[in-house]
């Protein structure tokens, strides 16, 4: 069972079950715990090769045992996401821990990924259970519905879930080419029905420079 202790520490109570977590993110535990690295994110040989090729490598460990285990990652804020059969798209670097019952995989993001500054691929998490994602500063969860599409700065995007279509929107004009852009040349537009997690900080992206 995942619970937050403050906003920066994740406590997981375990009774013989397992969780997958980012390598080395354990800060403390009581009881009996076992740590095992899972090569290729625990997705088998195929997953391992895919991750190598796509640059979405994540080093994951499996934590199993009885007791409470505390996780934290460089004092970044943690958000809990509960999944009921839907799919969560998140950058591998922003994924802290998932229930062992959740499946992880990679998916192609197209041009959006390049503008976000974190590659053309992203990690997907699906199934029933809980996942913990980290963000630089407390993230806001924005709901997208069919009447209300949402546009997000690629550098501030953390994750999204639900039935969403995404497209890259560009605001490149004559002024941008002249070097007079507003620094918001690209945005991701989400349409459909779902949730988008946005952090109050921007990664360095190509889009932020123009």
């Amino acid at each position, binding site marked *: 069972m995942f619970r937050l202790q*403050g906003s920066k520490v994740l406590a997981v109570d375990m009774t013989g079950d397992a969780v997958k977590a980012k390598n080395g993110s354990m800060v403390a535990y009581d009881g009996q715990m076992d740590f095992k690295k899972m090569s290729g994110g625990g997705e088998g040989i195929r997953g391992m090769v895919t991750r190598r090729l796509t640059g979405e490598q994540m080093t994951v460990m499996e934590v199993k045992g009885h007791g409470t285990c505390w996780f934290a990652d460089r004092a970044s804020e943690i958000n809990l996401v509960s999944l009921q059969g839907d799919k969560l798209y998140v950058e591998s670097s922003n994924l802290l821990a998932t229930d062992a019952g959740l499946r992880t995989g990679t998916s192609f993001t197209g041009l959006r990924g390049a503008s976000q500054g974190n590659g053309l691929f992203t990690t997907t998490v699906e199934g029933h259970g809980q996942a913990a994602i980290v963000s630089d500063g407390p993230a806001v969860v924005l709901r997208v519905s069919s009447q209300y599409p949402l546009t997000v700065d690629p550098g501030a995007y953390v994750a999204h879930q639900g039935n969403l279509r995404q497209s890259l929107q560009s605001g490149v004009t004559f002024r941008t080419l002249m070097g007079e852009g507003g620094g918001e040349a690209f945005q991701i537009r989400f349409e459909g029905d779902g949730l988008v997690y946005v952090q109050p900080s921007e990664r360095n992206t190509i889009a932020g420079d123009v």
Partner: protein
Amino acid sequence: MGFREINSKMVEATVMPGQKLFSQRGAMLAYKGEVSFTPNTRGGQGGIMSMIGRRVANEDTPLMTVEGSGTVLFGHGGHHVQVINLSGDTLCVEADRLLAFEGTLQQGTMFLGSQGGVMGMVRGQVSGQGLFTTTLKGQGAVAVMAHGGVFEIPITPQRPVHVDPQAYVAHHGDVRNKLSTALGWRDMVGRGSGEAFQLELSGSGAVYVQASEEKL
């Protein structure tokens, strides 16, 4: 006396005549009233011998003595500050994590090798703490710095607690610590889970853990 937390990164201390306060040099942010700050060449309490002890132990963080009457604000480097109140027991903490402490506390250094023998020394090296640590004993309050906030885990004889050495901040009470290794063949071939070394704390007391694996 004691420390009052203004926000998560700042503490306010009230200084009264005849009551001393020690703080890390340069950690004063603002003060009200008549307060004087004197650099403490001896790096803390005790005589010449304890000064030499600290030099040798590399635990001689520059301290200053705060005296007078008024209120002083302390903070350093934007780190989170945690106030720990001691009532007669001993707190073990790294010298560079100490922000300020009351003069009523007895300061000392502890050789880690004396707790756990050779493994104690290995422990100090692995956790980057060196072979010595600072102890504070008595009645009073201590302000300790940590990266990203601190949480406290109680230790009871039935439930020993394991802590990542990099996330360890301080502990108090009657606690024995030892380095436990979970080294397997996986670590030898570079396939470790990144949790090969852990501090095992057993006894009764509490350990303070920070929400980050970065040293100060």
